[in-house]
C-alpha cells in the first residue's frame, strides 16, 4: 500500500487530499503513473503532471521505497 498526497485539481479527482493504492513492491515512478492513469483517466487530460518523492521531482525510472513520501503534482500555478 502506498499513500499518495494530492494537491490542486488532483484532490478533486481523488475526492480528498490523500489516496492509498496497491502497487507491486518497490515500484518505479512510471509504474505508479500507469496505475494512476488507469484508475483515474482524468489524470491523462491534465496538461502534464509530475510525481514528487520525498519533496523532489522524480523521474520515471526512480524507485519508490517503503516510507517514501509520494505526492502527485499537477501543473503548478503560483505567482
Amino acid at each position, binding site marked *: 500500500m502506498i499513500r499518495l498526497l494530492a494537491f490542486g485539481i488532483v484532490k478533486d479527482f481523488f475526492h480528498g487530499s490523500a489516496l492509498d493504492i496497491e502497487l507491486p513492491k518497490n515500484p518505479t515512478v512510471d509504474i505508479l503513473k500507469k496505475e494512476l492513469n488507469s484508475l483515474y483517466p482524468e489524470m491523462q487530460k491534465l496538461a502534464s503532471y509530475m510525481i514528487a518523492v520525498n*519533496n523532489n521531482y522524480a523521474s520515471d525510472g526512480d524507485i519508490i521505497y517503503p516510507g517514501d513520501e509520494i505526492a502527485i503534482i*499537477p501543473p503548478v500555478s503560483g505567482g
Partner: protein
Amino acid sequence: MTDVQLSSEPLDISSCIEKATDPTCGGMNVFIGTIRNKTQNRKVIRLEYESYIPMAIKEMHKIADDIFQKWDVKNIVIHHRTGILKTGDTAVVIVVSAPHREAAFEACRYAIDTLKQTVPIWKKEVFEDGEVWVSAHA
C-alpha cells in the same frame, strides 16, 4: 542571504524590502504579483491558493541557490501567499538586491519566471459562474 516564506497572512512588502536592504548593494529589484480582476473577460471573485509546503520551500531555496550561482546577488527574499485572495491582494513578493542593477533585474525576473514553473503552489480562480484550477489543462 535568502529568506523564503509561505504565508496565510497578508504579505508585508516593506518588511521584504527591509530584509534585502544591504549597504554593499547599489540596486534592489522588487516584483509584486497581484490579483487581477479579470481572466479572459470573466470577472474574478477570488483566488484560492494552496501549496505543498515543505516542497515549495525547498524549490524556492533552489531558485535562490541557482541565482547565487548565476549572478552577483547579495540577498533574495521570496514570500508567497496561500489561502483566499481577492482582487488587488498581493500574491507574491520577490526582492533581489545586488551590487549592480543588471544582476538585480535579471535575477528577479528569473526568480518569478522559475517560481511559476517549478514551485508546487496552485491557484483556483473562482468566477461568478464557475471555477477553474489555473493551468491544469492545456
